[in-house]
């Protein structure tokens, strides 16, 4: 089970600030595909995935208990 934090546009689309997916030991790339297939978020392709508050690359592995977040294009400042 992986809990995934949502922000901004994605949070509004989903109507919640977090979702849970029944996965573990998947790559970031795989997770993005699953999110795309299951939720159809508009911004998945242009988003980054953060694992434990750091940006992750496509090949990084997500383990159970990791804190995962979808980071759509940022606009602070």
């Amino acid at each position, binding site marked *: 089970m992986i809990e995934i*934090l949502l*922000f*901004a*546009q994605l*949070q*509004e689309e989903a109507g919640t600030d977090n979702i849970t997916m029944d996965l573990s030991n998947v790559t970031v790339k795989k997770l993005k595909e699953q999110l795309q297939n299951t939720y159809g978020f508009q*911004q998945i392709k*242009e988003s*980054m995935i*953060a*694992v434990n*508050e*750091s*940006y*992750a*690359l496509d090949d*990084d592995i997500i383990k159970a208990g990791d804190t995962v*977040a979808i*980071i*759509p*294009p*940022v*606009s*602070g*400042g």
Partner: protein
Amino acid sequence: MEQKLFEIVEEPIAIELIIKKVEDRNAGAITTFIGTVRELTAEKRTIYLEYQAYKPMAEKMLAKIGEEIIQKWEGTKVAITHRIGSLDILEVAVVIAVSSPHRKAAYQANEYAIERIKQIVPIWKKEQWDDGEAWIGDQLENVRYPNAKPDIKDETND
């Protein structure tokens, strides 16, 4: 007197307190960048802005920017505070303060900080216009996370 140099806050930012954080007997120059809410962007009229952050990660990324600066410009000190929540026109969204023995570095490092904030810090802005609203993304008008890949890789290796 514990001070957080890199902070996400929900209350108005006291600019002079951020400046105080970087004061240094051997710094002759302090630069600040103050980002305020602007009414007109292109032809659209903003009523107010709403900022949201992934707070723990945002503070971590601000601190990372601070470390990058200290590596690049020797002798600098950096403090950054970003406000989130609902902000009216003229209100201060972000304050970046950099002190340095030499002014050139204080300007360069400060500008570097705001550019990096717009690349890697998980904060999002929702514009409330007089005719609608929208979350703003990719305001750099570039491809996603430009030039950020190497840093992201560093990050995962921490």
